[in-house]
């Protein structure tokens, strides 16, 4: 029995070696987004897969994308996934943190285990991650607010749809909206007018409509994430009666621009979160090149009625429709 135990222990510590003749070096890149139910992360996944196909041959490697995103938002599950990927030999990991506090120790552990880790969309700034690719969130909040002020003719009562309050990126966008509001003194934020909610389309839509029916004085919405617009018929008012400016530019949201419900969208590079992240990670893993900046800022694309169709064609290409 003791001999058996010793053999099992030795195998466990060594791992069971399997000899394989590999022609091309295989690079595994883990992608840990906030939740599978959020379409922006499906776009990121599509981007990562395309990057693996396009950039793999250029770098002379086989790239495998290991999608380890929890079905629903759960910071602990994300932390577990990061550790699992690092211990499973993933050379690179790109993560969008649901809660930076919870993800930070897992990111640090993954770096210690030899993986290159970067953040996209939602940063863990105090971790040992290599870099962050995403929106400058304060600027994003300011842009949304400035556009909303313009379409509201610089007066009226407004509210903010703010998603999950633990997301550090969202806190910064709210901060940006508030900072820009100071430039528009005739626009008032509804008392308790920041509405937080789980980042699922139905729950976001419910939050907007409940708030709007309870507070009919709301004349404008600054949506710092497009969650509510990922659902069909989410806005229960006639187009243009309540002004809306939102972040994100997913296919589902474009219909609201066409119908006139939404004045403008500030589209994040959600496809690029995956594509660009894979490129940055491959540069580091294969060529040893560090990114030029720790913060790589995604320039937001403004989508209005004028360019909505042209912008929509990108999605056909990105999602291979």
């Amino acid at each position: 029995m003791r001999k058996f135990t010793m053999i099992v222990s030795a195998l466990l510590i060594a791992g069971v070696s399997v000899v394989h003749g590999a022609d091309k070096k295989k690079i595994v890149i883990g992608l840990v987004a906030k939740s599978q139910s959020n379409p922006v992360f499906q776009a990121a996944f599509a981007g990562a897969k395309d990057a693996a196909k396009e950039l793999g041959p250029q770098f002379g490697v086989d790239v495998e994308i290991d999608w380890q995103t929890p079905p629903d938002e759960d910071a602990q599950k994300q932390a577990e996934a990061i550790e699992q990927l690092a211990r499973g030999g993933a050379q690179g990991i790109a993560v969008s943190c649901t809660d930076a506090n919870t993800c930070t120790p897992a990111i640090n552990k993954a770096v210690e285990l030899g993986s290159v880790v970067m953040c996209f969309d939602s940063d863990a700034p105090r971790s040992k991650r290599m870099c962050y690719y995403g929106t400058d969130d304060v600027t994003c909040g300011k842009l949304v607010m400035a556009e909303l002020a313009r379409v509201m003719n610089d007066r009226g009562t407004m509210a903010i749809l703010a998603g999950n309050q633990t997301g550090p990126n969202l806190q910064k966008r709210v901060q940006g909206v508030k900072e820009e509001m100071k430039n528009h003194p005739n626009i008032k934020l509804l008392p308790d007018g920041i509405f937080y909610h789980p980042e699922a389309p139905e729950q976001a839509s419910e939050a907007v409509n409940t708030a709007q029916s309870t507070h009919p004085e709301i004349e404008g919405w600054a949506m710092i994430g497009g969650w509510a617009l990922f659902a069909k018929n989410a806005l229960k008012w006639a187009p243009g009666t309540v002004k809306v400016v939102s972040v994100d530019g997913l296919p589902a949201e474009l219909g609201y621009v066409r119908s006139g419900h939404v004045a403008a969208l500030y589209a994040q590079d959600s496809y690029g979160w995956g594509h660009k992240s894979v490129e940055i990670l491959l540069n580091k893993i294969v060529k040893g090149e560090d990114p030029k900046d720790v913060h790589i800022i995604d320039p937001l694309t403004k989508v209005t009625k004028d360019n909505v169709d042209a912008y929509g064609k990108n999605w056909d290409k990105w999602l291979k429709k």
Partner: protein
Amino acid sequence: MSQPTATEPATTSSSSASVKRASRPRLPRIQEAGLLVVILLLGLVLTFAAEPISVRGHMINNFFRIDNIIPNVATPMSWMAIMALGVTFVIVSGGIDISVGSIFGLAALSTAAVLQNFPENASPWVVLPLAVGVPLAIGLLCGLINGALVVSLRMHPFIVTLGTLSIFRGIALISVPSKSLPYGDKNLPEAFTTHFMSWQLNIPRSDGSMLLLQPMPMIIMLLCIVVGWVFLSHTVAGREIYALGGNEEAARFSGLAVGRIKLRAYALSGLAAGIAGMISTGYFGSANTATGEGYELTVIAAAVVGGASLTGGRGSALGAVLGALVIKLIENGIYVLKKIPLGFVTLYLSKEYSKIIIGLAIIVAVAVDRLSEYLRTKKLAAAKQ
């Protein structure tokens, strides 16, 4: 409530003394032995079916390696197993506690809220008593509230704990406006995090790399199993819980203080959730208002898969932990397998599949429980004739 069962002689005893006599060390029951077989089979399947992976230039088995089994299975199952142990006390007593996820979250947040006020290098003599005392006290208090409501209002425990699930989560949401702790640039004291709960063991490997393990959650889980096993199987207080769950009326007529025993079961469940919350806060170095959300389903599933009967009277500490291990192995299995070639089609596995498989495991476990109950009743009836 179910009828007294042949496997739990305590349920028909008439005094504390007989309850104590009934308790004796036993080998694992058939259900636990069956679970061990299931775990072994799962392990074998995963070992042989998992694709080899490349780590540090070596191709190794993706499942059967210490780097997977300890940190990816045993460590994250620790807090689940401890909560499953607590819920087992309640299920054995004939009740149910679906508020454990919220108690876990509240205990974790309270611990982080208190400890973030100390400097990172604060003395362990100051930090550790609070780090242990706060979550345990919160957990115990929540458990006592559940128990008191069930006993005093004579309400169905599902309704009571459904209500407290929402209340405890609501308290967490209101108390922490930032929704995540520690706040801002603060860190929890290292005496509780990196020097205790996430203390790291660095074992050098033959290839020069280090094997990094954080064994503390697992050690606490093992301690809890031993304490839970001794309590349930070897103490009067523990056997009284079986007696109550086996037949509440019989227990009452036998002179057992039914209300007090129920209160004890819920208090222990809350305490276990508090311990789990303490581990989670120390291990992750943080807590947020969503911590533990939805965990009640996994925890109850672990207890049920581990052999706890929802009709009361049956269940064990070992079973709860084995149940948690089965569930974690399923989750890990999906990660290591990734795809199953079925010849005519390849099935690609993703995390969503774990929900379906765990759901099936619960149904199978309850079906096996009902079948064994039916066979036992039939055997007893035949013996009487």
